[in-house]
């Protein structure tokens, strides 16, 4: 049936040049090594990986902040290597970064959200319409006149997300948007992202360290040393506990617990991700007469 592809990358590779003390190029650091990435419209993709595995490098490619050394990348149909389409690419794939402070440009919330549309040359009245719509989507319309300095980390990230939405991108790439937030801020940002994906059908690419945030994704990619080493839905990926641990990544708590229980001999089904699912499965077991086994544990 072929749903519309927003991102088509194949065989992507990228090397950073490392300079010595005198500023001469000294070595090459491979950051991407043959990455294939296909994203369809409306999907929620999560990218996991240890520090230095190349996640941010990949994200920057999607926005044409970096261009691949090898392979090809099409964003919304535009070849990112083609200079003439740079602004179309940046508008197609909006970026949200890790540090909430360092990506808010204006000193009033509404003006910051308007920054992208201003750059695109959108007429004034339409900018305001977009700003209102975007701020309402992330639930920050009430704070439109506030100074960003007075907002919490989670609120700042939501403003940053609104700033990207106002550019009407085909997809949003979020590079560890919750890494600097407290638990409440994380929950609020992740909820916002999910709502955007489910209600507004915005395509999401979420880069994260945090396993819990990926369980709602349609597909999870796990990166290591610049390669995509695992790919599949949450159930598939998180049942490979040992491999993940080998990659120095954990699995969500409930999944880990389920896996450990299975190791002890309980016959739990595969692909348990949330506490609810675990509770349900255990209840099932209890009914089916494995009561003894459950109690024993």
């Amino acid at each position, binding site marked *: 049936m072929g749903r519309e592809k927003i991102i088509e990358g194949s065989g992507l590779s990228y090397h950073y040049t490392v300079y010595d003390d005198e500023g001469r190029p000294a070595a090459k650091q491979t950051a991407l090594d043959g990455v294939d990435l296909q994203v369809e419209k409306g999907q929620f993709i999560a990218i996991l990986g240890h520090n230095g595995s190349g996640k941010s490098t990949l994200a920057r490619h999607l926005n044409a902040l970096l261009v691949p050394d090898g392979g090809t990348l099409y964003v919304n149909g535009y070849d990112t290597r083609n200079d003439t389409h740079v602004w179309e690419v940046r508008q197609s794939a*909006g*970026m949200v970064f890790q*540090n909430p402070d360092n*990506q808010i*440009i204006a000193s009033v919330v509404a*003006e910051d959200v308007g920054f992208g549309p*201003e750059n*695109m*040359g959108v007429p004034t009245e339409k*900018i305001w319409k977009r700003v209102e719509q975007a701020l309402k989507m992330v639930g920050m319309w009430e704070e439109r006149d506030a100074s960003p300095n007075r907002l919490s980390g989670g609120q700042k990230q939501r403003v940053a997300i609104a700033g990207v939405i106002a550019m009407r991108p085909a997809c949003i790439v979020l590079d560890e948007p919750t890494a600097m937030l407290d638990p409440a801020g994380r929950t609020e940002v992740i909820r916002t992202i999910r709502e955007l994906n489910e209600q507004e059908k915005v395509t999401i690419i979420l880069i994260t360290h945090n396993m819990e945030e990926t369980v709602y994704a349609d597909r999870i990619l796990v990166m290591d040393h610049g390669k995509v080493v695992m790919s599949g839905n949450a159930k598939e990926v998180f049942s490979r506990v040992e491999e993940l641990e080998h990659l120095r990544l954990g699995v969500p708590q409930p999944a880990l617990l389920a896996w450990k229980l299975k190791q002890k001999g309980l016959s739990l089904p595969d692909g348990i991700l949330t506490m609810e699912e675990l509770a349900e499965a255990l209840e099932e077991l209890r009914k089916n007469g494995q009561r003894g086994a459950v109690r024993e544990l």
Partner: protein
Amino acid sequence: MLKEITLGQYYPGNSILHRLDPRVKLVGTLVFIISLFAFGSTSAYIAAGLVLAVVITLSAVPLKFILRGLKMIFFLMLITALCNLFLTPGDVIFKVWKLQITAQGVRMAIHMAVRLTYLILGSSIMTLTTTPNQLTDGMETGLGWMRVLHVPVHEIAMMMSIALRFIPILMDEANRIMNAQTARGADFTSGGLIRRARALIPLLVPLFVSAFRRANDLALAMESRGYHGGEGRTRMNPLVYQRRDHIAYGIIALYLVMIFLIWKYVEISLPFLP
């Protein structure tokens, strides 16, 4: 605590001056300052002083706030006045040892003090009734013609507004680093000037490093949001002249003519001014 500091000392209000277009206020202040230097006579200063008093009244900003600006330049004023007083050659009216005061010196000192006071009061009124954002907007739109002179107006305005956004953040950070260093035994408050300056090094180094990282992040964020300079950019809050702004321009022009005429034709000699 540091977040409470508002830059440019804006005093919120809804007076006619607050509502004026920032471009008008910029031009008005410029005209006022130029008039002070171009038309310097006792009569002109009295007239300018009256106008200033009217403007201050219209702004509805408490006098306390307006005078605060003067405190900062008190020493500068004192030194300029003293230099003028003692170093101007002319008819000596007072002499002790090698110091002499001339009539011209007294006149110069008073004029200079008045000029500086007016200058500070005039620009304070502008910054007190205009938010920093409006000010940068006004600069960018109002001084756009300076682009012909290769003045990067848009870039300067953008820089100013980014600086305004990051000053409280960096101040917060400085505070945090200072607390951390104090906790490890650093002492920022005692010792002589050199000692204190040296104590600042462990504060400034991490602050600079962080500022550079932030600048780098910000550049990426701006680029990713399609920023490519002022070219082809639209504005969310374009400045639009209202009727009152046209009237204000008229008044500014009238002021200029009036002050010129007074300077040229009206001679006032005050009894205490030689």
